[in-house]
């Protein structure tokens, strides 16, 4: 037994976990909201990535495109995070041992690190490449990685939902 597993077991036995799990409507509604919010956040992330790759809105500064989309990415992500947290809460014990779920968490971490390194790195020199039709290779790499990572996260989430 380890502490994380004990915590998941404890979560699984809380009243809220049981309530979400056993209600006919609550779980589908939370999951439906989770999916629609993924559309908003991952969809706008995809456009941000396409701008970094120099594929859309080439005539507009990258910073302008990213700034205009960011509130929707963040807003969508907050909803995704809260609903995802509730879904996990309702099936904590089952999720703990699920390989899809573990890989999903790993890839979420990788997507987070990719965004972090982008912001700490090439993003800081944005003034130098803001108007480039094709941004520098580091920015293009961050965009391509982000697209691949988020697509993988969605795939892993889908597999997780249908497994066991």
């Amino acid at each position, binding site marked *: 037994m380890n502490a994380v597993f004990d915590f998941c077991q404890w979560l699984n036995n809380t009243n809220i976990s049981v309530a979400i799990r056993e209600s006919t409507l609550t779980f*589908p509604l939370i*999951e*439906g909201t989770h*999916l*629609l919010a*993924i*559309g*908003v956040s*991952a*969809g*706008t*992330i*995809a*456009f941000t990535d*396409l701008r970094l790759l120099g594929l*859309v*809105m080439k005539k*507009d500064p990258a910073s*302008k495109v990213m700034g*205009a*989309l960011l*509130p*929707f990415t963040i807003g969508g992500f907050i909803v995704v995070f809260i609903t995802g947290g509730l879904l996990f809460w309702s099936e904590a014990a089952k999720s703990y041992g699920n390989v899809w779920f573990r890989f999903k968490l790993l890839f979420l971490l990788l997507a987070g690190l990719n965004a972090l390194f982008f912001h700490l790195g090439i993003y800081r020199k944005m003034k130098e490449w803001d108007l480039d039709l094709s941004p520098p290779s580091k920015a293009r790499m961050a965009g391509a990685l982000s697209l691949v990572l988020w*697509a993988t996260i*969605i*795939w892993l989430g*889908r*597999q997780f939902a*249908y497994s066991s």
Partner: protein
Amino acid sequence: MKLEFLLPFFKWCDASFLGHWVSGGTWEFPMIETIHILALTMLYGCIVMLSLRMMGVLMNGWTVASIAREVSPYLNASIVIILVSGTLLYLSEAIKTFNNAAFWVKVELLVVALVFHFTVVRRESKRDELPRGEGILVGGLSLLLWLGIGCAGRAIGFV
């Protein structure tokens, strides 16, 4: 609304070679559904940007027409991928979906949304700016239609 007279067609679909291919193996259904979901994500991103711009909520630094021009290739491509993958998924369980109320809601909403998109939205989004009320009406309707399809689609698995 369930269209009873289509039952023979649904049976034919269910027995089709493509339907058997999708439902037969272990990886075909999950892989096609994953492609369906990824294309959906892209479509939602495009629809959110275009609809909210028409409503004057986001990206007001761009004209409606320029947002429409930028998202169109991705929007159209995702619609094609969604329709092809969705048809394959449907073929694999056509008879099961015939008795699924959510499926009918989804398909009928989809027809309305596609017609609305390729007539009204397409024409209106050629303009630089929409009058406030009109933008809210057209953008709001578009957003609600596609969100409704998403909800009904997810409900197929639960009813």
